[in-house]
């Protein structure tokens, strides 16, 4: 019986990127710990650093897991194994998205624990916080897809620049069109309005669309190395 090469390759990526994931989780958890100090300044600093740790990993992970494979010329080694270019693309998506989701869920869980049990922020921050936490997830998928399909460090860096400068713009557009997002922030209970569900649905749809498009474009490649 032949080994599942794709699973071995996913595991190989996890082994190579484990420190990036661990350090991001530690940085995110440390940022949340700052919230325990209480007061407006620690809350602002903790929240910003929590978001920054996610944004940082959203850039670093595709760079190390995908761009570096080509840049450091380990791609020919991997492609000498029994995998096709479409399978390689699928492996990279599964390993990258899987690792990012793992740390994203870990940090989401930690943030929810801090809000629900340690009361570092009002419960009303949960819906809006979830919407904001999806920004780096979408940004990560966009950078990952671009790095994989474009096969170039330049395009990967361009995607990072566009994504990172878009976070505040998207947030500004959202709150200017849906003022309730910020109005319910200080509420003692989480307010799940139809607008919140609609935004979360669109965010989920964008993630699925980016990943599906990446897989489709990868499978159509005729020259891979």
């Amino acid at each position, binding site marked *: 019986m032949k080994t599942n090469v794709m699973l071995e390759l996913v595991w190989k990526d996890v082994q190579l990127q484990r420190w990036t994931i661990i350090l991001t989780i530690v940085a995110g958890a440390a940022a949340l710990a700052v919230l325990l100090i209480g007061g407006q300044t620690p809350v602002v600093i903790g929240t910003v650093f929590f978001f920054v740790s996610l944004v940082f990993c959203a850039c670093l992970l595709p760079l190390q897991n995908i761009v570096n494979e080509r840049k450091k010329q380990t791609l020919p*080694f991997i492609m000498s194994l029994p995998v096709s*270019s479409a399978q390689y693309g699928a492996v990279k998506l599964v390993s990258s998205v899987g690792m990012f989701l793992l740390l994203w869920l870990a940090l989401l869980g930690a943030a929810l624990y801090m809000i629900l049990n340690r009361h570092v922020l009002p419960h009303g921050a949960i819906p809006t916080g979830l919407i904001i936490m999806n920004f780096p997830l979408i940004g990560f998928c966009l950078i990952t897809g671009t790095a994989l399909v474009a096969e170039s460090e330049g395009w990967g860096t361009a995607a990072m620049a566009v994504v990172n400068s878009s976070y505040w713009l998207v947030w500004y557009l959202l709150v200017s069109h849906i003022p309730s997002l910020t109005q319910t922030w200080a509420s003692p209970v989480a307010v799940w309005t139809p607008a919140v569900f609609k935004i979360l649905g669109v965010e989920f749809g964008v993630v699925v669309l980016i990943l599906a498009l990446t897989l489709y474009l990868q499978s159509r490649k005729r020259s891979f190395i």
Partner: protein
Amino acid sequence: MTDYAIELEGVCKSYPFFELQNIALQLQRGTIMGLIGPNGAGKSTTIRILMGLVHQDRGEVRVLGHRMPQEQIAAKWDIGFASEDMRLYDVMTMGWHIHFMKSMYQSWDDAYAQLLLKRFGLNAEQKIKGLSHGQRVKATLLLVFARRPKLLVLDEPTTGLDPVARHEILRELTAVMVEDGRSVLFSSHNTQDVEQISDQITFIDRGRILDSMDKEAYLDRWRRLRLEVPDGVVLPPLPGIIGVRQSGRLAVATANAFMPHLPSEYENSGVRVHAVENMTLEEIFVANVERSREEVNA
């Protein structure tokens, strides 16, 4: 089962500034073929096509009986591929790489891997980033050889190596061939390496196969004739002579289809034959490329 490990028929691939034209190539099972060509000749593109990494625009490619690129996954289980631009993970150890390959290939020969570690002077605990270029090449080849593949495809594996490391690798490559049925395609622009280990030679230049045949037959066919042309005598155009360089009374004729009666034909026309010399593979290669380029330019 086909007798050929590699079969390429009418393979074409176009890039904006390079074209692989109508490549036809056959590598019989159990033989070593040296693919020789200058930089940019199309060696790597040909190899990438037969590995399924680049899809041909036209033509048929079969490797170990599998159609490429459609059946590349099945074919790659039995192909050991190493190229000059291939690198291992520099933050990981040699032992990690061995474990990684071992977890995938049931054909992995651990005893042979350990033997090669010793023979190549490698340490399983050492990280790849601490290895010299020669050691990195040996490490890559160890991972290829210990899989015991039916076909080895090596794209310029000896480039940039010192003579000792090159010798070690060529010796190991020859040892690997002792096993029955193993085939090797070995590309290089170093004709000495190819001459040392190959059974078959294929010349490629500017995206075209110039010639492909048995090495001994090749070396036997090519000769250089050192001639003296007395005043009033004109060098006759003889069949098999592909080029003549004349300087005053002295001339050098190159034959690519040497026949024993060629010298006497020159003598009969009044030309003195001072020497008939064998040519090295490098000289044959250069003559072949120059002739091909002259024909294209003409």
